[in-house]
């Protein structure tokens, strides 16, 4: 029972970073811009959330600042790929390197260590059983409760709002959208800014649950989220479900490690193996927005 509760708690803590990053990826990629930059968004979001929460002693302010930082990151990325027409994948890789380094520079300036920030206070929930305590702790994450809001909100946006429909149009058939007087660069910029804000919340989830920012703490989660985007066929709800599935796989692996005698490398490879299978077409088919991967003009 304890082990089961602890497992559920872990799914709830491992998933949010993947889920928000995947949603952010969906928004940006629906506009036809390949978004490798998710890793950088996660780092920037985690950094901002932790530093501002440390400085203001308020997680709410930390989250607001994360949204602002997300918007800023989205603008920078949009400046490169929309304004300057950089190839999105190349710019995305550069953006990730930039964020990995920038967060280290700022860490050094703020805390005189290029690797670790100070830690936020931890809340002890002793008294209850370990399973209950870890579950309560997982439920106390503010980002956990933002996740369903984001999933439903983005679903509604793509279905029922002008912006959502324009984003899809721009990603599916840029030329048709343009002939209807839709500005490619404007809609793409809007999509990138919104996507980065959502993805940055994933970073906040990571940093706030860890109670600390560490250099490179995103540790590939942005790429795993990208897998959820593809597996979820660029739809918010499906991508979110895949993020939960990948999160559950990771939590399962952590729960088996050291308890069941299975080589840990094998367990750790599970999410990636699954992704490979799906992307290679062995499990279902993925269809990308038509303009994805093109240089943008359609």
């Amino acid at each position, binding site marked *: 029972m304890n082990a089961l509760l602890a497992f559920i708690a872990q799914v709830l803590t491992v998933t949010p970073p993947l889920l928000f990053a995947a949603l952010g990826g969906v928004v940006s990629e629906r506009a036809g811009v390949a978004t490798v930059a998710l890793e950088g968004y996660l780092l920037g979001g985690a950094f901002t959330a932790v530093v501002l929460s440390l400085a203001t002693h308020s997680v709410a302010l930390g989250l607001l600042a994360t949204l602002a930082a997300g918007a800023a990151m989205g603008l920078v990325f949009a400046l490169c790929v929309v304004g300057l027409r950089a190839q999105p994948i190349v710019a995305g890789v550069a953006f990730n390197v930039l964020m990995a380094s920038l967060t280290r520079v700022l860490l050094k300036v703020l805390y005189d*260590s290029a690797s670790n920030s100070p830690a936020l206070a931890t809340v002890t929930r002793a008294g209850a059983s370990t399973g209950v305590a*870890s579950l309560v702790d997982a439920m106390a994450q503010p980002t956990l409760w933002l996740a369903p809001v984001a999933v439903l909100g983005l679903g509604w946006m793509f279905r029922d709002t002008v912006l959502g429909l324009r984003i899809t149009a721009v990603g599916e058939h840029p*030329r048709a959208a343009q002939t209807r007087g839709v500005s490619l660069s404007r809609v793409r910029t809007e999509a990138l800014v919104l996507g980065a804000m959502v993805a940055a919340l994933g970073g906040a989830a990571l940093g706030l649950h860890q109670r600390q920012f560490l250099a490179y703490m995103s540790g590939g989660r942005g790429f795993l989220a990208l897998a959820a985007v593809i597996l979820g066929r660029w739809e918010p709800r499906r991508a979110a479900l895949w993020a939960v599935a990948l999160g559950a796989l990771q939590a399962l692996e952590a729960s088996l490690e050291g308890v069941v005698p299975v080589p840990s490398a094998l367990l750790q490879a599970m999410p990636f193996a699954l992704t490979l299978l799906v992307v290679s077409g062995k499990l279902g088919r993925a269809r990308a927005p038509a303009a994805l991967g093109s240089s943008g003009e359609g």
Partner: protein
Amino acid sequence: MFRHGERIDRRTVSPFLSRVGPGVLLLLAFGSLWLPARGVTPARASVPAGLRRVRIGLVFDVGGRGDKSFNDGAWEGLERARRELGAEVEYVEPGDADDRASALRLFAARGFDRVIGIGYIFSRDVDEVARDYPGVRFACVDYATPERGAVLPNTVGLVFREEEGAYLVGAAAALEARGAPVGFVGGMDIPLIRKFEAGYRAGVAAVCPHCRVFSGYAGSTPQAFKDPERGAALATTQFANGARVIFHAAGSTGLGVFSAAERVGRMAIGVDADQYDEAPRVVLTSLRKRIDVVVFNVVRDAAREVFDRGDGGLRSFGLREEGVDWVHQGPHARHLSAETVARVEGLRDAIVRGAVRVPTELR
């Protein structure tokens, strides 16, 4: 042929800018890799009589400064050398794997008196750079000897017998758990970390032959030493399966073990440095590797113009040399019962006397 993007968009960006944009971004990004991590200490302390002012270059391990563990121990030793020996010290916190050798090379090329690499992961980098700079002397903490050939004559490897300390904290964990299971969380799955586990298990078995020991490793890459989220996940699982005390040998991944212990109100054991201050409510004790002492001694040797290469280029520090220790005195040992301390100190004497030999490999 017209490109409709240009026709309809109001702004037309010059082709030059569009080509240069990502290049500039890349350049800035890579350039900044070097910016943050260099540290130079400006103040010059005076040099004691009879010693020489030496220049020391130190390269930190993954985890970096502020890990409250391995690297901060090295930092303490370096700081002490600067204050007490008047040494001029510089350090680099390498970003990724490829920066390690170049950081060592940076110091070697400038003819520093000692170039120190912190961590087993530097072993081959030190070999490579030491071969290119035979006139410079290198020291490497947690050095792993090359598979072929001897240690280079300008290199000394400084190794710890961690298993001896792990044996003591294993016994302490089992005594405090009173028959309940205990746990171990390792960082990267490598022989060095399995040595901790081997000693720990032997220590548990010494006081409680039938006690269960859970064990988990965070991964198989150096990233496994800086992933607290995973440390917390592994620890939560072990606690949920009944572990009372968890010992970690996982760098900053271990900070997640502490936060998991705090969340559920169980105990944890620190590593490398006295980690009580990280989580005063849950840190039972810590296995200390006196990296500070070892680094300080390297600098002091340099200042005395001695180069002690020990036994064929390897110097080993265990309980007897006080290179390895466990926290059992003062306010930081307040969670330990007096009986536990007495019993474990008895085991320490047995190891120092040579009556007990601690295994270094898992069976």
